[in-house]
């Protein structure tokens, strides 16, 4: 044991003498672990919230029976099934409005509720009596209670009725109200009706479903993935892709640091072997050293990852709420698995980055003379091999682009593009530098190019990291800018009305309409409404459009049939959103079956419109037709056409008259500002991760240059000896770094545009269902070019300054120690 410790101490002593190299290694590992685990923390937080939502009284995790057409059905079927041995429990679901806000109401039967269904035990034991006995209880989450601004035990009003007193249950998700099914039937005016039957796991003899319910009900098996999880998959995949990219960029630093340290320690390793340390023991201790460093860096990386996640969580939560309506608590809570996984990823990353060096150590020939920077000698062979792999990766990416048809294949195309470009970069740089060398005539210029080529092998990993970070920045920047432009012009057309109202209930809506008809500044009242249904197991919104010129003139359609707006009046046609059209492979002229309470509603598609930011498919139909087919929907929504100058006064009058607050009454400008704010927050996370990745690439360049700077002295000292001043040498060094950085950046720009095209035309279409037009923003590219060169300048400055200020004695020493 003491032998191992002694060898370990010797190996570690290298780091004590080369603290910058140790810092490089640790920074690489810490950045990689921090960014990866930060993103994982965000994903885990969101997913656990989805699970919490799904677990609320039987979501997608419980097998259920529903009616064939998706509508409610008679409670008698529940009774019949129980008698036939089915462990079913009824649930009625609907929406109620409390003070103008819409809440999801769930009516459950606590007596038959299967024990494995989320939250059931809390009712089953203590509160059963008070829950079912009039006036009953309404279970809400602490967040809902606080957003209602009332105390526990209060009985708010909804749909003209007094609700049961509120009781807090911490496990519930926000915006969900849970009551006894009898109370729900009363509140939703659906006596004797249920939405679905939850099926418990109790084993026993059951009469076949068809014998009890005929063809009225169908069984939906439990799903491992919740609706919300499915909807938000693309968002989390995006985050994960970024985390992975940052992780790899971090590992580039680690690989560079470990490679250099290994080459510098070759003589030490040989001495250790000569002193009697066996190869097996030496390799074991090298591994122990690496794992120890990875664990230390992993712990620091996890703390940094936690801080990154905590900083980004508000933006992520706002994005998920804005885009998908998902409620994510603002407080980060992490499971022990996250900490363990972070350490594992740190160790695995370090091992992956050190593989080449460890293999060299295993094969270390005992008698070979010490050859610092041996990789330079093998550079040519490596370049050919790397270029061949790059071409193979490009070919695989092209094949995936052609044949792939999933989000994963879209990301694989992106990964292939980036990996291929990174692997091909050293060969391209070598080619350009050798061209420069061939054209040079002056002795110093020839040395400049030749030395740049020699330096390339030590810098290539950092330059690859820079290429990746820049390309992703260009790609994501172009995508966001394209999205931003398209989104804003789309929003202008989509928000057609000047004022939007959501009344507390139908009665108030009628009162408001009556009052508005007497207001001369109101040009038109545009009633609106929404219904929800499911097509092919996925949620779809049915959206009612009033038959009015406002929509005909301004509503943006991507494709449409002749006289589409006129044909919409008939009630048997509809416009569908782009994502629904792509998902169901529908085109103008096709027909779609929409499950409705009275039976399927067959609609002909007469138009396709963009619906950015909506994860659900949407169908726009004539408002009157919607109310006929979905008679139960609230008629509380309306839009107003008002002269812009009259909007503030009208809003003020509406607030005074009907006590409407900002949640129920909003003008177009505020709504646009809010939508834009949500949009910007959505990409704030992307921008932050983008900046982190670029920062890590900058650090990679800095650390590579710093670690290389010491080993560069033997190359520079002879030039100094023959009369080139230190200042001039420093300037040449700076110019060299900036040259290779410039070539890399110039290569990164077209690669980034290719990445942007791939994001817009492949990944976005698969992830969100919409395709955005591709624009190039030259100013943005110039800006990034400036940032990249500034990063290279900052990275190169420290080693260059050190060289410029170096004492002649240090340079003389090179000759004294020359072997």
């Amino acid at each position, binding site marked *: 044991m003491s032998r191992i410790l002694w060898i370990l101490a010797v190996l570690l*002593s*290298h780091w004590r003498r080369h603290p910058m190299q140790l810092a490089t290694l640790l920074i690489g590992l810490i950045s990689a672990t921090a960014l990866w685990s930060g993103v994982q923390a965000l994903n885990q937080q969101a997913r656990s919230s989805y699970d919490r939502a799904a677990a609320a009284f039987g979501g997608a995790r419980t097998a259920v029976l529903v009616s064939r057409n998706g509508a409610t059905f008679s409670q008698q079927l529940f009774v019949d099934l129980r008698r036939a041995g089915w462990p079913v429990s009824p649930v009625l679901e609907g929406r109620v409005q409390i003070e103008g806000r819409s809440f999801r109401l769930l009516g459950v039967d606590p007596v038959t509720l299967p024990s494995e269904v989320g939250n059931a035990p809390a009712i089953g034991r203590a509160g059963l009596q008070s829950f079912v006995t009039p006036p009953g209880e309404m279970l809400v989450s602490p967040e809902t209670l606080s957003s209602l601004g009332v105390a526990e035990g209060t009985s708010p009003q909804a749909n003209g009725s007094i609700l049961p007193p509120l009781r807090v249950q911490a496990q519930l998700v926000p915006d969900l109200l849970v009551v006894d099914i009898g109370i729900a039937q009363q509140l939703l005016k659906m006596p004797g009706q249920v939405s679905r039957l939850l099926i418990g796991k109790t084993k026993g003899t059951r009469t076949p479903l068809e014998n009890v319910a005929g063809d009225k009900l169908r069984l939906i098996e439990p799903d491992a993935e919740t609706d919300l999880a499915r909807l938000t998959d693309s968002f989390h995949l995006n985050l994960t892709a970024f985390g992975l990219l940052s992780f790899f960029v971090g590992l580039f630093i680690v690989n560079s640091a470990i490679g250099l340290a290994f080459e510098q320690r070759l003589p*030490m390793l040989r001495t250790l072997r000569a002193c009697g340390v066996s190869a097996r023991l030496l390799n074991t201790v090298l591994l122990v050293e690496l794992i120890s460093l990875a664990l230390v860096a992993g712990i620091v990386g996890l703390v940094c990852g936690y801080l990154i996640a905590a900083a980004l969580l508000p933006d992520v939560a706002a994005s998920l709420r804005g885009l998908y309506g998902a409620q994510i608590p603002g407080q980060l809570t992490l499971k022990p698995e996250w900490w363990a996984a972070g350490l594992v990823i740190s160790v695995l990353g370090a091992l992956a980055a050190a593989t080449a060096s460890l293999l060299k150590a295993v094969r270390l020939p005992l008698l070979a003379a010490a050859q610092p920077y041996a990789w330079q000698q093998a550079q040519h062979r490596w370049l050919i091999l790397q270029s061949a792999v790059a071409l193979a990766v490009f070919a695989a990416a092209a094949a995936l682009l052609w044949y792939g048809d999933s989000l994963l294949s879209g990301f694989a195309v992106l990964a292939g593009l980036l990996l291929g470009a990174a692997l091909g970069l050293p060969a391209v740089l070598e080619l350009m530098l050798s061209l420069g060398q061939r054209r040079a005539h002056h002795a110093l210029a020839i040395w400049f190019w030749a030395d740049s080529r020699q330096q390339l092998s030590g810098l290539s990993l950092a330059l690859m990291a820079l290429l990746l970070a820049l390309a992703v920045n260009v790609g994501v920047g172009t995508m966001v800018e394209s999205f931003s432009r398209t989104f804003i012009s789309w929003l202008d057309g989509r928000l057609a009305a000047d004022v939007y109202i959501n009344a507390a209930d139908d009665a108030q809506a009628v009162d408001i309409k009556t009052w508005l008809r007497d207001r001369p500044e109101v040009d038109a009242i545009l009633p609106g409404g929404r219904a929800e249904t499911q097509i092919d197991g996925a949620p779809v919104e049915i959206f009612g459009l009033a038959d009015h010129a406002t929509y005909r003139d301004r509503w943006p359609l991507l494709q449409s049939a002749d006289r589409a707006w006129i044909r919409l009046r008939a009630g048997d046609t509809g416009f569908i959103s782009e994502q629904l059209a792509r998902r169901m492979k529908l085109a103008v002229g096709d027909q779609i079956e929409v499950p409705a309470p009275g039976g399927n509603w067959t609609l002909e598609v007469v138009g396709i419109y963009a619906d950015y930011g909506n994860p659900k498919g949407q169908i726009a139909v004539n408002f009157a037709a919607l109310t006929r087919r979905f008679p139960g929907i609230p008629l509380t929504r309306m839009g107003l056409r008002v002269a812009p100058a009259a909007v503030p006064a009208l809003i003020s009058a509406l607030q005074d008259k009907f006590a409407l607050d900002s949640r129920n009454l909003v003008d177009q400008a505020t709504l646009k500002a809010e939508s834009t704010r949500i949009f910007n927050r959505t990409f704030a996370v992307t921008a932050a991760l983008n900046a982190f990745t670029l920062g890590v690439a900058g650090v990679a360049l800095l650390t590579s240059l710093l670690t290389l700077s010491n080993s560069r002295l033997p190359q520079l000292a002879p030039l100094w000896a023959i009369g080139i001043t230190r200042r001039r040498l420093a300037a040449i060094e700076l110019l060299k770094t900036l040259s290779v950085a410039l070539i890399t950046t110039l290569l990164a720009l077209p690669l980034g545009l290719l990445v942007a095209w791939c994001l817009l035309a492949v990944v976005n279409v698969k992830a969100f269902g919409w395709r955005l037009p591709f624009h190039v923003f030259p100013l943005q590219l110039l800006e990034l070019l400036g940032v990249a060169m500034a990063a290279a300048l900052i990275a190169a400055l420290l080693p260059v300054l050190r060289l410029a200020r170096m004492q002649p004695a240090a340079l003389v020493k090179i000759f004294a120690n020359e072997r």
Partner: protein
Amino acid sequence: MTIGHQIVLSVRNLTKAYRSAGEEIAVLRGVNLSITAGERVALTGESGSGKSTLLHLIAGLDQADSGEIRLDDTLISDLSDAGRAAMRRDRLGLVFQQFNLIPSLNVRDNLVFQSRIAGRHDAAWHAELVERLGLGDLLNRYPEQLSGGQQQRVAIGRSLAIKPLLLLADEPTGNLDEATADDVLALTRDLVTRTGCGFLMVTHSTRLAATLDRHINLSAGLVA
């Protein structure tokens, strides 16, 4: 320490050949030699005569094609890589022309390194070595802060710290000026006498070779 006629190294019919450009070049063609405890032997020869190869084979850094090398009672050619490593660690001292100190360890740690990993650290012997080698003021310095002569003294101290059976030195004074070389060799001779180990030194210098007990010349792969 017994200084007598106990044979610590015995080499019999040792051969070694290398392949270069498709041609086999015989470096050692049946070398025989033996060294007794306390005996100090110089190995000379022209460049390419196989001196360093012979030393590397004895040290177990390389493997012979045929013949046998016996260190005390151990047949080196029978040992595995780990066995040869253990032999170097516990029973051999190695000194190279390039000093081969560990650059990240200071003099103190370099001196004790081999004896520590061999588990044979002897504090009194260590103190004596430091004093005899004149390293007392240099213990906290790093190799790069030492002159060539000082570095070689540390290397000798490190290899003798385990009181080896045999000290092997490959051109230990090759990088030193004449006066320093004489000093270093004188010190080595004294310490070898003090420990009673065998000493085999490869050198180009017939002047230095003459200061040892016996002089073996290697020519065309054979002991002349």
